């Protein structure tokens, strides 16, 4: 069954058609990759799904319900979480607090309840902290829980962002180039982690330039070029698709 169904999605910037009539589906419990040369419209596609950008046309169904044009916080509440291509951590907060913000949609104490520190607020607070610590262990960052998020190295910042995105226990996780800036060892760890998260039942939509990573872990791949989908299918098919090869021979990604 399709968890996410995108039909004829469009978005232009001025005259530039960044996403042009793109349709695809993501099936529940799978890892789907979106690849394509720089500027192909991959991040724009993510922003449209996540609500960070308003689409010009098309439709987006999540669990059969339209999330087209919803503001990002509503998309998050519907069960979609994401990471960013250029890491966006809360630099003014600790690692633990960053992950705890990820629990926002899974907790309910509002402004007034927080202000009065009601018993149920305090109970919820403990649960949030425990869950954040658990996630930090999963990502091997439990030793820096109290460190400022901005003080960490790149690899760990990506780990924090990943943990924060997972904290909401999303049904669908959007990862925008999670391996960018990671070394080979970290990339291998990441691959295992993504597969483990898929096995936990979380569906993953992944943008990635690292072809060996994509080919290894993806169940399906969609290829974008100049805003249009030019190919889609399992890794073995996409790898041998002449159109894809043509696009990548001109691109700088082929060497990766």
């Amino acid at each position, binding site marked *: 069954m399709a968890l996410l169904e995108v039909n004829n999605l469009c978005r232009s910037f001025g005259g530039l058609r960044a996403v042009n009539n793109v349709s695809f589906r993501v099936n529940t419990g799978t890892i789907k990759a979106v690849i394509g040369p720089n500027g192909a419209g991959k991040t724009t596609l993510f922003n449209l799904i*996540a*609500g*960070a950008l308003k689409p010009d046309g098309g439709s987006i169904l999540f669990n059969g319900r339209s999330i087209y044009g919803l*503001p*990002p*916080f509503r998309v*998050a*509440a519907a069960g979609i*979480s*994401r990471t*960013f291509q250029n890491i*966006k*951590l*809360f*630099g*003014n*907060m600790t690692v633990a*607090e960053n992950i*705890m*913000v*990820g*629990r*926002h*949609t899974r*907790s309910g*104490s*509002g*402004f007034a309840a*927080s*202000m*009065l*520190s009601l018993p149920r*607020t305090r109970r*919820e*607070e403990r649960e*949030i902290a425990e869950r954040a610590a658990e996630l930090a262990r999963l990502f091997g960052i439990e030793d820096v829980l109290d460190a400022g998020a901005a003080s960490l190295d790149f690899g760990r910042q990506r780990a924090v962002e990943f943990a*924060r*995105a997972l904290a*909401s226990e999303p049904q669908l996780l959007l990862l925008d180039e999670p391996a960018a800036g990671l070394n080979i060892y970290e990339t291998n760890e990441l691959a295992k982690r993504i597969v483990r998260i898929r096995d936990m039942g979380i569906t993953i939509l992944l943008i990635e330039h690292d072809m060996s990573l994509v080919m290894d872990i993806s169940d399906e791949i969609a290829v974008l070029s100049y805003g249009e989908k030019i190919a889609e299918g399992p890794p073995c098919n996409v790898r041998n698709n002449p159109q894809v090869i043509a696009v990548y021979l001109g691109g700088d990604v082929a060497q990766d």
Partner: protein
Amino acid sequence: MKRFVAIGALAAAVIALHLLFAAAGAEYLLVQLTMAAYYALVVIGLCLLMGYAGQISLGHAAFFALGGYTAAVLSTNSFTQLMGAPALERLVHWGLVTAGTDAYGAAAHQVPVWLSLPLAVAAAAAVALVIGIPVLKLKGHYLAMATLGFGTILYRIFLGTRLFGEADGISSVRPCALLPGLTIGGDTALRTQNYYFAWALVLLAMVLSLNIVSSRAGRALRSIHGSEEAAAAMGVNTARYKLYVFILSAVFAAVGGFFMTHFNGGIGPAEAGIMKSVRYVAIVAVGGMANLWGSLLIGVLLNFLSLRGIFGSYDDAVFGALLVFIMALAPDGILRREFLHRIMRVRIRWPFSK
């Protein structure tokens, strides 16, 4: 737990200062400490808004003045001129207005505090709501400019309206009897109870604010400061949280202005002025932005000194200079370890360095 210790320490310090001034025969200093406490309410709210949520307001004095003018209009005869005698009689009949006499024995009317205080709070909240919805969509310099504009508008309204006493402001505001044995007013006999009442309000505001910042709502506010885009992606309704904290800070300021006006027996347009707004911003910056205790401490200290007239006619210049100093040398405030270290190192190295 740490929170309760700190709050307890503040309560102890309030009592200790009273005893100290009483022993030194300097109880008149409680007057300035009372006023500093009311200003501190503005500072606490602005600290939440600016320090934690990262939304600057260069118009916050207007909310203080709004609370103050509401108190003044509703407890002098100025509002009775607005309506005819029959309407007034009906209000008296319903208990919404109490009839009495003023200091000279003339007939006078006053709205009771159980109604005037909620009205002041509602006025501030309503203005914050109406201003906040469009303005909080703006960021950085644009938000600063827009709030500056808003503050200027209210200032000019207070300055130019008959009801608000124009340039003279409103004086002979009557004391307000809050509870049996607790009257907010400037009488020497009321000095001690007013001091404790003002500081009880500060303690309450601190408890509420500390609760917020160490909870889900506080994390949401700080995440907006860190990255609005990421906050929204994590499910934070950023527009609503910004509006809530803007309204809360406006209400804190209005409550401060309300009681300050009864305590002082009047209010003038300068309370709404841009220099006052800049002063509050400077205090929060010096206090360390996202630092409620720092802002409170610095706010009380500087306002107390200012009210004692220490800065003379350079009062506003001192706060302006502080703002420049803090932005250039210690953008995280002066109560930070790094800044104190830096000062120490400068002193030690000075004679040896070229």
